[in-house]
Structure formats: C-alpha cells, structure tokens
C-alpha cells in the first residue's frame, strides 16, 4: 500500500494545474480518492470530528444491496434460455455463467459511457468526481430487458446522464431518477425493442454457452404482465415461456421472464433488508409504496372486469409480478429524487405505489406502470415537500402572531 501511495504521490504533480496530464485531473482525482480515503481534516472552526460514513460508503452499500438481484438475474437469464430451448437439466454454474456473460457487456457499456461523461464534466467544472453513477450504472442493465442492444444502452445512458443529471448540476441536483430516465428513453424511443415477447429471454448462445431459442416452436417470452396486457377474454392463466402454469412461488423466487434484475421478489426483499438495516433507504417510502400498491390493487381486484385484465391480479400478485417491488426498494428510495420530508415520504411513496397499479391496470398500453409511477412521483416530490414545508412555516407564523398578541412582551 505504501508503494502505491508513494507512486500516486509521485505522479500527482503531472495531473495538477500546469502538469502535462492536467486534462485527466478528474480521472486521477477519482482514482486517488477511490484508493485512499482523503486525509482532509476538519476546518479550524466548527465540528472537529466527522462520522465515518461518506457518499462512497452509501453508494457501495446500495450496490451491495443490489447484488442478490444481480446474481439471481444472471441465474434466471440462463434458466429462461435453457427452458425456452427445451432443456430438461439446469446446471446452476452454467446458467450463472451464461447470465454473467449476458450482463457483463451491458454493465461495461453503461459504466464506460456514464463514467466517461462524469469524468469529462467533473474535469470541465473543476470538481471532484461524484460516485452517484456507481449505483446508476449497475441499475440500468438490471431494469432493461436482457436482449436490449448494447448501442441502445449506450445512447440511453448518455441521454440520461447528460439531460437528467448533468444539466441540473450533477449528483444531488437531479429531479428524475437517472436510471429510470434511461429506461424511459429506451421505452419511448425504441418501443419495438423494449417490449413484446421476444426481448425478455436471451435467445442466442454466448461464447458457445447456452442455446438457440426457436420462437417457431410455440415458445412465448412474454412476461406475466405482458401476457395480462394482451389477454383477451376467458380465464386469466399466466404461463412460463414453454406454456406451463406459473405459480406465485415461481414469481416470488423470480423464475419468470422480465427485465434482468427485477424478477425475484425474494432477492428484492434481501436487498430491502440490507438497505433498511443500514438505514440507507427510507423505510417510510418502502412501506408506503407497498401500502399504496396493495390498497389500489385491492380496489382494482374488488371491481375486477375483463376490460382491464390486470384487475384479476390479487393485491399480492401486483407486488410479485413486474418491477414494482424492485422499484419500491431501489428506485423510489433514491434520496435525491424522492420527497425529503418525513411526511412527504409517506405521500410520495403512496402515490408511487398507487399510480404503478393504476397504470398497469387501467392503461392496457403499458403492461408495467412502476417506471412511470416513480417518474411521476419524482416530478411531484418537490411539490409534496413544498406543501409539508409550508405547514411548518404556517405553524411558525401562527405562533408569532399569538406571541405578539400576548401583549406586554
């Protein structure tokens, strides 16, 4: 470590103002603070000691909470491929390896594009690199279908980082969740490649691993919510890619088609546990999203009608299928874009949960409503906070008026 430190100290002057590599100052700075916690000490006046937690620690905890979903996503990608190809044996390691090979280039592309932009902007603004993209970069591949072309991921990532984050001032100032903006961009720009029944199941072998899926064989890669959206009369029967019935257990564990990291409600729960125990995510938001979804789901289910087939889903099913659980834990809780007041968090979460179910139930054009619900919540969050802050302001004004009326003092 000493040698590495000495090496960094030796090359540091090249990256400073006037050095021959000063164009890469932000890159060097990012690497240096990544490797060694800066030994910056407190200002002479004010708090002399500080909590050990910093935003790097927070971001890395979120990434850790995402790992169960990511690893299960690898397994499920392999599993769906094997299943669709008609395999009868499912070798765990090969499934995982297949999924790993499927997702690796996607993560690499989002990180390369996103971090590249961050480095350039940090250099241009003469600021430190911020670590917000560590989480965004891993989220984007996880909330997209596995068959999304790489170039689309690159374009969407660039669009989201530039127009949803940097133009607002960078990490901490964005209004909309960056990862969801990337997904919304893909969803609206390339609807054909982002929905339907062929994008959620990997259909080609990678490096000789995996199978070729032949859709002519009556295979349907539609997600459960996709099946519901295209449902036309008769009893609702959710099917796996090869036409077997899906149980709630399959959906809970996550062995269903869907975006890469969102299918397993079980793994989402593990991630939620990590975020809640460490206190990174707001329990208020998670609880209220779930409450909003369950309540709206219950209302929809009570008034079920074949016009809106998603109303056949029980409230619990609403959380098992699609990305709602994932969005509740990892998207709605993004502290920058969610409401920041405690009362506001309850309202914000409830709106997100309720809207997600409303959209997926009563708008047949969109099989999944979680993405749009969180983005809508993001747009409303400042307004919600404004109203909550106003109650504090009005309470203070009332108190002042009362005190003045008190007369003698």
């Amino acid at each position, binding site marked *: *470590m000493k040698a*590495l*430190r000495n090496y960094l100290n030796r090359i540091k002057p090249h990256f400073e103002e006037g050095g021959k590599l000063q164009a890469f100052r932000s890159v060097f700075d990012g690497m240096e*603070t*990544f*490797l*060694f*916690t*800066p*030994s*910056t*000490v*407190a*200002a*002479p*006046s*004010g*708090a*002399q*000691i*500080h*909590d*050990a*937690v*910093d*935003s*790097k*620690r*927070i971001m*890395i*905890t979120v990434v850790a909470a995402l790992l169960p979903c990511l690893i299960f996503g690898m397994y499920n990608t392999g599993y769906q491929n094997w299943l669709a190809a008609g395999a009868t044996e499912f070798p765990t390691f090969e499934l995982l390896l297949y999924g790993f090979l499927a997702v690796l280039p996607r993560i690499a592309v989002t990180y390369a594009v996103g971090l590249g932009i961050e480095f350039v902007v940090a250099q241009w603004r003469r600021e*430190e690199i*911020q670590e*917000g993209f560590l989480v965004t970069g891993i989220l984007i591949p996880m909330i997209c279908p596995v068959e999304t072309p790489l170039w689309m991921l690159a374009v969407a990532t660039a669009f989201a980082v530039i127009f949803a984050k940097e133009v607002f*001032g*960078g*990490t*901490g100032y964005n209004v909309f969740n960056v990862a969801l903006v990337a997904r919304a961009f893909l969803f609206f720009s390339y609807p054909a490649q982002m929905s339907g029944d062929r994008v959620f199941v990997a259909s080609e072998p990678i490096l000789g691993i995996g199978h070729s899926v032949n859709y002519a064989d009556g295979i349907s890669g539609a997600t459960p919510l996709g099946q519901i959206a295209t449902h036309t009369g008769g009893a609702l029967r959710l099917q796996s890619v090869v036409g077997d019935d899906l149980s709630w257990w399959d959906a809970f564990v996550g062995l269903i088609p869907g975006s890469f990291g969102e299918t397993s409600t079980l793994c989402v729960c593990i991630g939620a546990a990590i975020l809640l125990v*460490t*206190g*990174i995510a*707001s329990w208020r938001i998670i609880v209220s999203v779930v409450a909003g979804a369950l309540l709206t789901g219950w209302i929809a289910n009570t008034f079920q009608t074949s016009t809106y087939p998603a109303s056949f889903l029980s409230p619990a099913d609403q959380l098992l299928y699609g990305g709602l659980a994932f969005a509740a834990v990892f998207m709605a809780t993004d*502290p*920058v874009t969610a409401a*920041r*007041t*405690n009362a506001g968090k309850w309202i914000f979460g409830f709106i997100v949960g309720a809207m997600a179910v409303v959209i997926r139930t009563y708008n047949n054009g969109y099989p999944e409503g979680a993405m749009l619900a969180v983005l809508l919540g993001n747009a409303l969050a400042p307004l919600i*906070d404004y109203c909550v*802050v106003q109650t*504090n*302001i009005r*309470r*203070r*004004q009332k*108190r*002042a008026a009362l*005190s*003045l009326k008190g007369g*003698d*003092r």
Partner: protein
Amino acid sequence: MRRQLTIKKGLDLKLRGSVADPTPIKAAATPAVAIVPDDFPGFLPKPEVKAGDAVKAGTPLFRDKNDGRIKLCSPISGTVREIVRGARRHIERIVIDSDGRDEKVAHPHPTNADELRLLLMESGLWAMMRQRPFDIVPASDSHPRDIFVTLTDTAPLAVQPATVLKGRYDSMAAGVKALATLTHGKVYVAVPKGCTLDLEGAEMVEVAGPHPAGNAGVIASHIRPVNKGETIWTLDGATLACIGDLASGKPVDHSVAVAVTGPEITTPAVVTTVPGATMESLINGNLRPTSRPLRVISGNVLTGEDAGIAGYLRWPYRQVTVIADGSDVDEFLGWASPAPKMSLSRTFISWLMPRKVYSPDARINGGRRPMIMSGIYERMLPMDIMPEFLIKAMLSHNIEQMEALGVYEVAPEDFSAAEFADPSKLELQRIVRESLDYLRKEI
C-alpha cells in the same frame, strides 16, 4: 414548579478521555491571556489600550464601534503585550502578560436596572452574553423577552457546569435576581436532570437527552421559541455568577473551570483558570507521548476552534479537547473498510457494539458533496425546524425563506451534531454563522 424537558433527537458519542473526577483543581498560572474579538460576534472592536499599558482585571480593552458603552475587558491584571492584526488591519487578538497580582477594577454597586445595564456593558459581562436572533452580543438597546441560562452541557466529554460551579451558587442566585430586573419575561435556568439546585426567582428546567439538548437554543425552542421581532438572551452559569458578583457590589471573580479532555490527554481533569489562558498552562504536559500531529481544540469535538498547543482558550468554551489530527493517515480503500468505525449510520458493524469507546481524529472521512441523503440533519436537531430546507435557503441567500423557516431561532452550535453526522461533509456551522451575519447586514 420545575419543568422537565426530555429531548430524544441528537447524538451521544462515546469518546476516550472523559473526566473521572469533576472537582476543579488549580491550573498552572497562565503567563498571558489572549482575547479574540471575533469570538464575540456582532462586536466591532476599537482598542482602548495600546501595547505596554498596564491593565487590571476588568479594565476595558476594546469598545464596540456600534455602541462605545459595550466593552471587552481584561480578565487578569498585567501589561498589554501586543494587539495582533491580520489582513486589512483586522484585529486578531490582544495579548496581555500576567503580573500575577490579580488586581481588580472596583465597580460601584448598581441601584437600579438602568445602572445595572450600563455596568454590565462597562464591565465586559454584557459581551459575554448572546442574543437571539443572530447569536451575537446583545445590542445595547436590546430588551429580552426571556433570558435563558444554561447550567448543563451535553457536548461530548463535557462536564456538567452545575457540578463544577458548586461554590458559586450564591453568586448565581444574585445573578438571577439581577437579570430578572432586565426582562419582563422569565429567567430560565437549565440544569441536568436530577440536579436539585433551585435558584429563587428563576424558572428551573431539568434537561435530559443527547447533544445538543443542553444548548440554549434547543431549550428555548421547547419552552418558548424566538419569533420574528422578539429577542432572548442566552448565557452560561459562570457568566451568571459574575453578573451576580457585579450586581451585589462584590469584586467579579472571573475565574472559570475548564474541562481538559480527549483521547490524547493522560489524566483528564477540571482545572480553574481565567478566560483566554494559554493552552500550555491548561494542558501542562498532561499529554500522551506521541509523534503524531495533534489537534488542540478550544471547545468540544463538535463545536470548537483548532487553537493549537501554542494557542489560547477561546470564548465561550469551558472545555479543551485534544485529539489526533489525522492528516498523517493514509487509509487504503477506507470506504470499503469492514472495521468498526465511529458512525451513526449502520453501514459499519460498529452499530452492533454500543459500548465501544472511540478515539477519533479530525479527518472529515470523505469528500464534500451536495446534500444527497435526506432526514439526517433532522434527526440531529431537536427543534421545530426543517434543517435541510433552512440550510438550502441559507446557501441561496434567500432571506424571506430563511425567516419563514425559523432562522431567528438558531445558532451555529445547534447544528453541531448535524455537521458531524452529515455524509456530505458540509460545514453547517460556518454556513449558519455566515448566514446570520449576512442577514443582520441586509436587514
């Protein structure tokens, strides 16, 4: 009737170097004292003495340019060594060499409230109080709605003033009587929970809870918050005792009890000295042997000044804390460290070790960021204030919004716990101080 106040929000840090026996012992005689005018916000110093002048304890050193009747006085008798000036002739400090004689300026016995006010200004005791709004030396025409005296200190490693000031209870009682003539409201005296001290004429408040529960602003906000157009005064127990001496015509006893604490102190203790004493006389070799750079703080670890071993005890601190500086540490992949570090967040396993005692250093443990996490300041500020929004209003110099969000109720020290906990490492106390000064100038 005694009021009970139980505060829930805030923090309770477990640090090495607490005082085992709070009985004050006499400190080594200080060879000199320094008074720093910047420690008295709102006071614009104009020197009344020059280098070489002989002064007594109580001789005015500076008068306030806003109102020349308000003075800063020498706490000891001796000779003025120098007035140290910085950039643009800004007065940094005045240093007075002690003659070891302890001669005092005699003050007349005030007979009414107006005389008392003038005498407080003349004797320098006025400048030792603070007013809200703005957390400044009270303006000369200020008439407080209420007066809040704090005899409790919840800061890390602090000792309870109610305990160390045991010998001064009579003076305090006289002080309460005197202050009661200066306000139509009440004189509130905050003591730690379980303290039986009862001062006649004061409304006693027993305070329990984590830091910053013992801050005057927090206590006031739970009893009667400062509204726009109102003024309260805040002071500590030692100043109250001095006011009592002055009001009863006795010579003012300027001595203060200072807790010398922190992980780098061999035997933490409470010592009696005078305001502005040298750090060397206070610490007096009571340091653990180490080759690492140290940070000698006048104050506590959450609110204080890095005075340095060659520095002086700054106002209004009754505590010295010595910790490692940490500028010599290079930590590899610190953000990923599995070690149990001192943190209020549960991202380190230390949250499972509630009894662990820490020896922190002064590193800020991260880089400055915009506000990312929400709700952290709020858990550290037990007031009816929305701290994040107030800080944002301050950062954008939005006066109207600051007023609406309660800027008149706060002082920088109220944000000390939030500044510690902040993962974005913002200098909240500096932001609040600068905003209060900005606001005062603009209004």
